């Protein structure tokens, strides 16, 4: 049973476009949602995170939109660059939970 779901395994966009990565979850107790970015041959690294008390978190070209009622969130990468080509993992956690639960990842390819 996948508690955190990422609807697309892969996504291709042109340079300059906005990439939209979707994520949904099942457990209403989740209150912390980080996104991790992973380049080939490396470990994942925290990109941006949001808590459930907020509906939007922005950091440069990266924005998380969060919908608590629908139990979904999305990561928007504005003005995509070839250097953004990577795998992006949505994750979730809650106070009292065991540890972060990761989605299956979305691999983004940005074509110049």
């Amino acid at each position, binding site marked *: 049973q996948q508690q955190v779901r990422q609807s697309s395994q892969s996504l291709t966009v042109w340079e300059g476009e906005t990439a939209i990565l979707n994520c949904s979850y099942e457990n209403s107790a989740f209150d912390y949602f*980080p996104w991790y970015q992973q380049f080939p*041959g*490396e470990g*994942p690294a925290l990109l941006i995170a949001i808590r459930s008390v907020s509906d939007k978190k922005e950091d440069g070209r990266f924005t998380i939109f969060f919908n608590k009622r629908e139990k979904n969130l999305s990561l928007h990468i504005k003005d995509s660059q070839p250097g953004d080509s990577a795998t992006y993992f949505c994750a979730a956690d809650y106070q009292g939970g*065991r*540890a972060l639960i990761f989605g299956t990842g979305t691999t983004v390819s940005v074509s110049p």
Partner: protein
Amino acid sequence: EAAVTQSPRNKVTVTGGNVTLSCRQTNSHNYMYWYRQDTGHGLRLIHYSYGAGNLQIGDVPDGYKATRTTQEDFFLLLELASPSQTSLYFCASSDERGLEQYFGPGTRLTVL
């Protein structure tokens, strides 16, 4: 210099073999984690620890043992390796559970 290191980076063993994967962190973090990454499954938690001598079971613990000997060192043991354990293994550390996790570069294990 890298704060989470893993060794070896690559390992090939045979079915029934004995394998130890090592992880060291210099972040002075209390929490350490072992994950496996497989296509279509994302990152799955094997074991984690919140201090020397402590061990917590993750989501996919079968066939794996772990030991946290010091705050810095966390080991993953496969005592009777099977082909199903062929995977990319990541170690991570965090100061507080669930908040920013710092990942190592990974160990690619092949069980023939």
